[in-house]
């Protein structure tokens, strides 16, 4: 006899073995908060939006922003800020739309796809911020170097000693290392958070996809 048929016989007999929950106990349960992964993804994603948004505000009024102001970059900074806010709003709209589409009543595959889609939107937003960080640093450095009296002085000395290449190479290497460390730190952080949170979902999604091959 098929093993599952043996189990099927027992399966429907087991009802009386479960502890029956009363009306009151079930009622108490529906008042409790969910701790599903969707809720956690929503919270973490919101924190990410807030994090990048707050960073731009925190920089205002600091010595860094005063230095940036001194560089007279408004003709670049203002259009860039406008574009980045529009992109932020667009990302947030996408994120919210995807989040609303997540429904526990969908079939298992669609549910997983919708969760992964929401997660992907946030991932693109993070990539956008990282790219903006790199571009911002490159433009900022270029302007800072052109306006820095110290650097101009150094360059004058370097030119007289034929050391221009060394100075440029040193500056570029320092920036690349600083950016690499920042990006690596953020990537490890994201990998840990989402990697752990979505490990099981990804595994199950792969399993369902495998069935289609």
């Amino acid at each position: 006899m098929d093993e599952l048929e043996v189990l099927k016989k027992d399966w429907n007999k087991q009802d009386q073995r479960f502890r029956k929950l009363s009306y009151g106990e079930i009622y108490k349960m529906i008042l409790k908060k969910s701790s599903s992964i969707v809720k956690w993804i929503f919270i973490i994603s919101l924190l990410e939006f807030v994090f990048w948004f707050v960073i731009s505000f925190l920089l205002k009024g600091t010595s860094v922003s005063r230095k940036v102001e001194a560089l007279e970059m408004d003709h670049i900074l203002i259009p860039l800020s406008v574009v980045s806010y529009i992109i932020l709003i667009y990302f947030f709209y996408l994120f919210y739309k995807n989040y609303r589409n997540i429904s526990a009543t969908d079939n298992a595959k669609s549910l997983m796809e919708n969760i992964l889609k929401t997660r992907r939107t946030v991932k693109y937003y993070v990539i956008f911020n990282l790219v903006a960080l790199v571009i911002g640093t490159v433009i900022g450095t270029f302007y800072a170097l052109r306006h820095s009296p110290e650097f101009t002085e150094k360059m004058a000395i370097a030119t007289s000693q034929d050391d221009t290449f060394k100075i440029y190479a040193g500056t570029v290497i320092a920036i690349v290392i600083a950016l690499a460390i920042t990006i690596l730190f953020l990537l490890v952080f994201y990998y840990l958070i989402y990697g752990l949170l979505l490990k099981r979902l990804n595994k199950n999604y792969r399993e369902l996809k495998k069935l289609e091959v």
Partner: protein
Amino acid sequence: MKKDLEHSFVELLERHQNIIHKVCRLYTNHYDAHNDLFQEITIQLWKAYPKFRGDSKFSTWMYRVGLNTAITLYRKSKRQISTQDFDGVEFKIKAEHYDDTEEQQLKQLYTAIHQLNDIEKALVFLYLEDRDYKEISETLGISQVNARVKMNRVKTKLKTLLNS
């Protein structure tokens, strides 16, 4: 209005609670984990209830939400210890109804099922609940042919697990 909704939901769930217990039975192997998953499924069902139109049976609707919670939404409880405690306790209770051989066989079957992956467990669950392949494929989002093929593979896997 909200009170009426709460009342109708809790009443329906009280009547059909065994479906949730059975999902928990396959996806957890510890009493605390069983209760945690039961609670999360109940919350998910309640959240989805306002959209329940009644065009499908309440039980069918519960299968979907219950399995989705177990497979996708539920964050496994830290308290889920990989022991066979649960099986042991439960089988002691029903020992008087079954002879030893059958009890032993069932115990081995449940242990083998706990070793299946989440999707395989879902297939086994729906099979044990006597759902047809149309419903199985709709619940999981795969084709009927693939559901049938996978079910046969699960049966073979179970045989291998039982013989190992």
